[in-house]
C-alpha cells in the first residue's frame, strides 16, 4: 500500500514520523526562494524515502539497518577522495604561489641592487669626467676659460651641483584631522600639478636652481604622478615635498609669496588644507641632476655631443 508522494517544491516537508498535513499551496509557492531555502534545507528525498519505507512497514530510517550498503560505501569513498584531493590541491597551489612570490621578490631586489650599482657607477664616472676636464683645462689659459664656461653652463643646466643662498618651500598633505569638508577628498593630497605651480612660481621670481626632495630640476625633468605617487626625474618622491631654490635671498621669499606660486599655495591651503612653509636659508647645496641628450645634437659643433655619448 503506497501513499502517493507529492513532489511539489514548496510542499511543507514534515520530518520524522509525524503524519503529513495537507495545506493549501500558496500562490507564490515556487517563487519564495529564501523561504524554501530555510524550510527545505534537507533533501526532500529523505522524507519521501522515509514515507515509502514506513508504508512498507519498515523503520523510517535505514540508518539502523545493517551497514552493508554498497551505495554508502561508494558514496563515502567518493567523499573521502574529493576532500583529500581538494586539500592536497590547495596545499600544492599554496606552495607554487609562495614560491612564485619569493622568486618575484628576489627578482625585484636584484633589479633594484643592479640599478643602485649602476647609479653609483654613473656618479663615479661623472666625478672622473669632471676631474679630467678640470685637469685638462688647467694647463692653458684658453682651457681654463673653456672649463669655467662649461662649469657655468653645467650649473645652469643642472648637471653640476650648486651652492648659494635661497629659500626652502615645504609642501605637505593636510595634517590628520585637518581635512576640510568642502574639499573633494581626492584633492586633499599634494598633486603633481601643485608642485608644478610651485616650481613655475619659483622660476618666475628669479630662482636660478631648484631641487625637489634632492632631485635636481633640469631642462629634461618631468614632474608627473603615476598611481598617486609623484615622479620627478622618473624617481618616486614622498611627502613632505621639500623644494629648495637658490636665488637672491633678499627678494626671493617675498616675491614668491606674492607671485603666482605663493598665491596658488595660499589658495589650496584655504580650500583643501594643503600645508606649506617658506624659509630663508643662508646656504643651500643642490645636487647634480642628469640631463643627457640621446638624440639631439648641436647643429654646428657636435663634438661635445659626440664626446659625451
Amino acid at each position: 500500500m503506497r501513499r502517493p508522494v507529492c513532489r511539489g517544491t514548496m510542499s511543507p516537508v514534515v520530518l520524522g514520523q509525524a503524519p503529513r498535513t495537507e495545506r493549501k499551496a500558496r500562490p507564490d509557492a515556487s517563487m519564495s526562494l529564501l523561504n524554501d531555502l530555510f524550510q527545505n534545507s534537507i533533501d526532500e528525498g529523505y522524507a519521501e524515502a522515509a514515507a515509502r519505507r514506513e508504508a512498507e512497514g519498515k523503520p523510517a530510517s535505514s540508518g539502523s539497518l545493517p551497514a552493508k550498503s554498497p551505495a554508502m560505501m561508494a558514496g563515502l569513498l567518493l567523499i573521502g577522495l574529493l576532500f583529500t584531493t581538494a586539500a592536497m590541491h590547495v596545499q600544492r597551489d599554496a606552495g607554487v604561489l609562495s614560491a612564485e612570490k619569493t622568486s618575484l621578490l628576489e627578482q625585484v631586489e636584484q633589479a633594484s641592487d643592479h640599478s643602485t650599482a649602476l647609479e653609483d657607477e654613473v656618479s663615479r664616472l661623472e666625478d672622473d669626467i669632471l676631474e679630467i676636464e678640470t685637469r685638462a683645462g688647467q694647463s692653458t689659459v684658453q682651457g681654463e676659460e673653456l672649463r669655467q664656461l662649461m662649469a657655468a653652463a653645467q650649473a645652469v643646466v643642472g648637471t653640476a651641483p650648486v651652492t648659494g643662498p635661497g629659500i626652502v618651500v615645504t609642501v605637505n598633505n593636510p595634517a590628520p584631522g585637518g581635512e576640510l569638508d568642502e574639499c573633494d577628498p581626492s584633492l586633499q593630497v599634494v598633486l603633481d600639478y601643485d608642485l608644478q605651480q610651485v616650481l613655475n612660481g619659483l622660476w618666475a621670481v628669479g630662482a636660478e636652481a631648484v631641487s625637489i626632495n634632492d632631485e635636481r630640476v633640469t631642462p629634461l625633468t618631468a614632474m608627473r604622478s603615476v598611481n598617486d605617487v609623484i615622479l620627478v626625474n622618473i624617481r618616486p618622491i614622498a611627502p613632505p615635498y621639500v623644494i629648495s631654490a637658490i636665488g637672491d635671498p633678499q627678494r626671493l621669499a617675498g616675491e614668491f609669496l606674492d607671485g603666482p606660486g605663493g598665491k596658488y599655495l595660499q589658495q589650496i591651503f584655504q580650500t583643501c588644507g594643503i600645508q606649506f612653509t617658506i624659509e630663508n636659508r643662508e646656504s643651500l647645496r643642490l645636487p647634480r641632476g642628469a640631463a643627457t641628450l640621446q638624440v639631439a645634437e648641436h647643429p654646428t659643433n657636435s663634438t661635445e655631443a659626440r664626446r659625451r655619448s
Partner: protein
Amino acid sequence: MIPAIGLLLGIAAGLLLDVQVPLTLQPYLPIAVVAALDAVFGGVRAVMDGVFDDKVFVISFISNVLIAAFIVFLGDQLGVGAQLSTAVIVVLGIRIFTNVANIRRHVFHA
C-alpha cells in the same frame, strides 16, 4: 562499519594516488567540496531526524556536486562565473547552516 571503511579507503586513495585534477576542472573543485559538505550535513541531519536513506544520501551527494559544478561552468561560459559561484556558495552555505543548527538542536537539545 563498511561505510567507515569506504571513507578511509577514499582518503587513502586521495593521498596515495595524488589525483591530478585536469586544469579545466580545477575551478569547480572548491564548489564541489562545498556541495559535498552540504550533502554530508544533510545526511547527518537525516540520521538525527530518523529518516536517513543511504541511496538518497549518495544520489544527493553526487547530484549536488555535479549540479553545483555545472551551474558554475554555465556561468563561466556566460561570463558570470564568479557571480554564480557566489550564488551557489550562498545557497549551499545557508543550507549547511540550517542543517548544522538542526543537528545542534538534536545533540544538545538547545
